[in-house]
């Protein structure tokens, strides 16, 4: 489904990703872990199309299509959706508007018409209940005045409404207490299916107790230094990152 080949990415002349390769197949959940500054968040941002990055070489394909040649919104409509680490506040724009506009944009791309209002409201009510959020959230401006936990729930709410084919979740656990993390993890798990893949970016193993990945990759200095199954994450929890650093240096 997603194929990243020898990706080199720079910001202001500093190379952050130095030849990263990664394949994610349909139905798989991958976790990218690594110490701070290893380039974890860069990968998902580049795939989503953030413009501050300079891609010096390499390729990213999604179902065989060149992702790097696509517009930001095209990527989202194709099913590549990024859950932000720091969701931005958009004053005056109600959550419900954003959801409706995004859902209709996706449906239009799929050749479907606009979802009728009653059907849409039913869907939203169902999803918002699943995220244990109050319906009043819909009337509030996007992320404005939301607590850290509310912002993260809101990201997952958008995911479960828009049903991406590849969900990329950037540090979705940061700033969450254990109860909030369970709700977020339940939301994410409800998205798991044969056709849907996920890319979790996280610093801590904690999240992976709730969302068990198929593959775990350790990112060190812009490259994947080590890959393994869920067991690797547990090992990192116990031993830290140093041993991977040493191993990769050797």
């Amino acid at each position: 489904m997603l194929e990243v080949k020898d990706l080199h990415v720079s910001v202001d002349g500093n190379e952050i990703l130095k030849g990263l390769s990664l394949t994610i197949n349909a139905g798989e959940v991958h976790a990218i872990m690594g110490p701070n500054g290893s380039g974890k968040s860069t990968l998902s941002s580049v795939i989503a199309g953030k413009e501050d990055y300079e891609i010096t070489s390499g390729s990213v394909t999604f179902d065989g299509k060149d992702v790097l040649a696509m517009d930001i919104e095209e990527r989202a409509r194709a099913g590549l959706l990024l859950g932000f680490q720091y969701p931005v506040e958009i004053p005056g724009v109600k959550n419900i508007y954003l959801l409706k506009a995004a859902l209709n944009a996706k449906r239009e791309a799929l050749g479907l018409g606009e979802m009728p209002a009653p059907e849409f409201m039913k869907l939203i009510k169902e999803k918002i209940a699943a995220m244990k959020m109050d319906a009043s959230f819909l009337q509030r401006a996007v992320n404005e005045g939301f607590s850290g936990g509310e912002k993260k729930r809101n990201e997952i709410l958008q995911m479960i409404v828009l049903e991406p084919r590849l969900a990329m979740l950037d540090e979705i656990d940061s700033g969450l207490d254990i109860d909030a993390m369970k709700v977020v993890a339940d939301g994410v798990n409800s998205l798991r299916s044969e056709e849907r893949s996920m890319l979790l970016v996280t610093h801590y193993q904690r999240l992976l107790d709730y969302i068990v990945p198929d593959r775990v990759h350790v990112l060190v200095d812009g490259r994947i230094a080590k890959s393994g199954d869920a067991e690797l994450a547990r090992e990192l929890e116990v031993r830290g990152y140093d041993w991977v650093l040493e191993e990769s240096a050797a």
Partner: protein
Amino acid sequence: MSTQEMEQLVQREYKDGFVTNIESETLPPGLDENTIAFISNKKGEPEWMLEWRLKAYRQWLKMTPPSWAHLDYPPIDYQAISYFSAPKRPEDRPQSLDEVDPKLLETYEKLGIPLHERAALAGVAVDAVFDSVSVVTTFKAELLEAGVVFCSISEAIRDYPELVKRYLGSVVPQADNYFAALNSAVFTDGSFVYVPEGVVCPMELSTYFRINAENTGQFERTLIICEDRAQVSYLEGCTAPMRDENQLHAAVVELVALEDAYIKYSTVQNWYPGDENGVGGIYNFVTKRGDCRGDRSRISWTQVETGSAITWKYPSCVLRGKDSIGEFYSVAVTNGRQQADTGTKMIHIGEGTRSTIVSKGISAGRAEQAYRGQVKVGPRAKGARNFTQCDSLLIGDQCGAHTFPYMEIGNSTAQVEHEATTSKIGEDQLFYCRARGISEEDAVNMIVNGFCKDVFQELPMEFAVEAEALLNVTLEGAVG
């Protein structure tokens, strides 16, 4: 988003730029005392009205146009303007909608104005001013039943001379400023509203102004009076066809609110802004002022300004009555080569007076926009309060946004707060929306509408939708 893309995005067409081919009677260009006598005579005005006009004209001759605004335009040749144009002959003036020239109705249809059935459905009473004269006023009979007078100012001069004599020029004196003096001399029509004591006007009142004929100026005069405990909500809409010449619009609006009265005045202004090279467009020099004469009275101005080549406009409130309230909510969008210098004045005279100013300016293309506001608290205005929020959004690097707030505080118990920001559309906000699959254009519209939310929510429901649509049209472009 690159600057170029942004520029494409903000290019748009003017949707109301059609000309209506109807028979009209137009005075040749030029202005002297004879012109004024002609206008006065044409409208069958009494002698005192003509005298009033001539007095204004003589004062105007001694005045000079203001030069302090952040505007750049060639001097206006007041002799090149025609000061009177009327569809058909006044004797044939329609008495009800059924008699209105179908072409004219078609015009309003194109404008999407709820004049006909839509008016009935919306329950909005409409007065339509086409070039210089009031064409039709709907629901007049229904309103009269409630005691509300809603008619053209010409009719008011004829039918309610005492009210007109008492209030005309009492808020905006004849020589208040250059354009007000000109208007006082040559005004041709406009709306008149009188709501008697204790009456809450049963429906929204609305006037649509359109400049149609070539080389004409439009000088309408609106006077709204709310007696004790009376209330009215009034909306005006403005459009004009696309023409290569600049046309002058110099209106005066006077509002008088007595004890516990409430006047809500909303404007959706979409005069032709000129083309992308700045050719043509309306010069909009307007004096709007409300006088909160009575205790606890309230006047609220809401404006959505998307049109005109030049806008010079400061709807103001004189807060005389104790505990009276003044409000100003404004969205102004300038694009292409439009220039706007707009804002408000809140003059706190009485004790416990309060005012709120929310101004949202959006400047794109090569447009220049300035917010100019004055908050004055006099020595007797104990406990006066003002809050001002004044935000500017810039789209593209060829436009300008300026803020000139004047705060003159002369009472130690006053509380005056002013906040202002200037920035561009957040790149991170755009990215966030696009990463959810929303197109760049829709994302810009969403963010801009969000930016304007505080003002749109002050508009009457039917018009809030219209205003949002208008904003989107203004910023509509060629993305994708």
